[in-house]
């Protein structure tokens, strides 16, 4: 499946860090070559910046119920004036909610991605490298995780535990690691036989050192690929859970906004400025993830190149 072009053969005394830095250099070559990956990374960067500077970008407190000059509720105001995107049915500023939602989205997305990738990578490394009983046990665990329907499971978690964004992360961490684990495992198994490993063994490097210093950097691209997909998946799941009414009611996320719009009959009122932007934001962030993963897919599976 993977081609040899990008494998590094560490010489004597090369540390993990320099392997990674070399990887980073080659990794950044991708965006330069593939416009999609570049676009994806750029979009991610924009969202991260928005999330970091959300405090200064919002015009109002996203959770505050607002009143107009007559002490009437500032509800369903169309875009314009004080409110760039108008207000919701309960009198909150839509634009501020949208900006604030980027924080929630990225928080959930990044945390989930980190967990999935960490678990998946570690399991894949260990299962692929050590083989035998460990491998069998871990793969059985993977099969069980794959046998649990994803969305129903998260729904049950969200319903029984207190509604919180972490339920989604928890569900994702528990159930989505097998895909990356399997692929990484296959990769590790093929790498295991490579000559340079034998060479390292000949110099007396122990199994753990071989695993983490020599093999790991070569599969990090795979981890990154699955991470970028996991971010999107987490954001979509959080939106679905909020939409079904199982999300927390005190934090503003894009999924919460969509649920609020749905419950307040935004479409029946023609409030497209409320309903469309959060959906678009979700699409953009998730597509950015796809673009990035596609870009890396190109180098990992270069058969697709002409």
């Amino acid at each position: 499946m993977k081609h040899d072009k990008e494998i590094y053969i560490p010489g004597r005394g090369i540390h993990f860090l320099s392997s990674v830095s070399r990887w980073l250099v080659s990794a950044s070559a991708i965006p330069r070559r593939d416009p999609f990956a570049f676009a994806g990374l750029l979009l991610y960067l924009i969202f991260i910046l928005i999330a970091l500077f959300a405090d200064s970008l919002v015009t109002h407190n996203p959770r505050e119920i607002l009143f107009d000059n007559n002490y009437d509720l500032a509800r369903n105001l169309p875009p314009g004036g004080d409110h760039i995107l108008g207000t919701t049915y309960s009198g909150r500023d839509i634009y501020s909610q949208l900006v604030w939602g980027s924080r929630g989205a990225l928080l959930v997305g990044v945390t989930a991605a980190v967990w999935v990738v960490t678990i998946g990578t570690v399991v894949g490394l260990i299962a692929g490298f050590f083989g035998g009983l460990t491998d069998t046990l871990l793969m059985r665990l993977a099969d069980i995780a794959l046998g649990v329907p994803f969305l129903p499971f998260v729904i049950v978690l969200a319903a029984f535990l207190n509604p919180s964004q972490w339920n989604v992360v928890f569900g994702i961490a528990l159930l989505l690691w097998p895909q990356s684990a399997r692929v990484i495992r296959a990769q590790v198994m093929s790498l295991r036989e490579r000559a340079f490993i034998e060479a390292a063994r000949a110099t007396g490097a122990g199994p753990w050192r071989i695993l983490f210093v020599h093999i790991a950097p070569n599969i990090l691209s795979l981890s990154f690929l699955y991470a970028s997909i996991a971010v999107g998946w987490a954001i979509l799941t959080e939106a679905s859970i909020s939409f079904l009414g199982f999300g927390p009611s005190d934090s503003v996320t894009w999924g919460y906004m969509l649920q609020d719009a749905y419950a307040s009959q935004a479409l029946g009122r023609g409030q497209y400025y409320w309903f469309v932007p959060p959906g678009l934001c979700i699409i953009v962030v998730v597509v950015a993830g796809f673009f990035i993963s596609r870009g890396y897919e190109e180098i990992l599976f270069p058969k697709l190149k002409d």
Partner: protein
Amino acid sequence: MAYFLKRFSHMLFVLWAVATILFFMFRTMPGTPLAAFIDNTTTAEQQDALIRQFGLDKSLGEQYWLFLTNLMQGDLGQSFFFKKPVVEVVMEVFPNSVILTLTSLIVAYLFGIMVGAYLAWRRGSWVEGLGIPLVLTTRAAPEFWLGMVLLAFFSFHLGWFPSGGANTSGSDWTSSWQRVTSLDYLSHLALPAITLAIYLHGLPLLLMRSNMLNVLQEEFITMARMKGLSTWTIVIRHAARNALLPVATSFALGIGGAVGGNVVVETVFSWPGIGRLLVNAVSASDYPLAQGAFLMITAVLVVMNFIADVSYNLLDPRVRVETR
């Protein structure tokens, strides 16, 4: 044959494991299981009697054993809310989910395969450059969002399709078959199926496309070209057939995944399916029903995984799944 048996026993193992996890998850979750069942005027003795009746006074181990033995006999317990056997409640709505899933997948796959093959053929052109991001966008949009927009436009605004449910109120049918093939049912099925199909077609499209690209580069295609066969013949006879195999197995996997994931679409369109049943059961703390619905969805998922595995193996003996 040995392989088949091996995978089959594996499937049973996974089913057992998930059922066990489910059991302990529901039993150890916070909240009173009987809250929905006991109402405000039940006396203390009646409550105790109910607890005994549902076996909640037994030890967890005993309850688990009872659960397993009942499960193997096809008894999923009794719903707290509807006071009917869970199996009955689930089977009332399960066919609707299956029909929705199958219809959407068939539409999605037919469309995806054809367009995927076309895009592979037009590699490097602007069609591909536009098409791919468009397809990725459909995979990135929340299904319920898509559904709401379609509902608002095609149902509320244009009035072409009904707003929800599976049949017009009060309609009668002579048989189940007549019901699901009636125009009424199909018009109710149309919007939810289209919504799902839009979401689901991305995978077969991209898969078909990448497989086609692989196959198109292979030696024997070049040979066929050299032989002078028409491009169309090449595409259909050689490339497509070989590229279809992974797509076929992903179809099986798609069924498994979609039945559980349909819950948001079922909610938007008020489609009476098993996903909606699960959500309602969970909201009402009707945990035998929630458990039963969950198990049903799991069973479909695991069985479809098994079918996908086995059929991949059968259809392409060149590729064997790694033995462990």
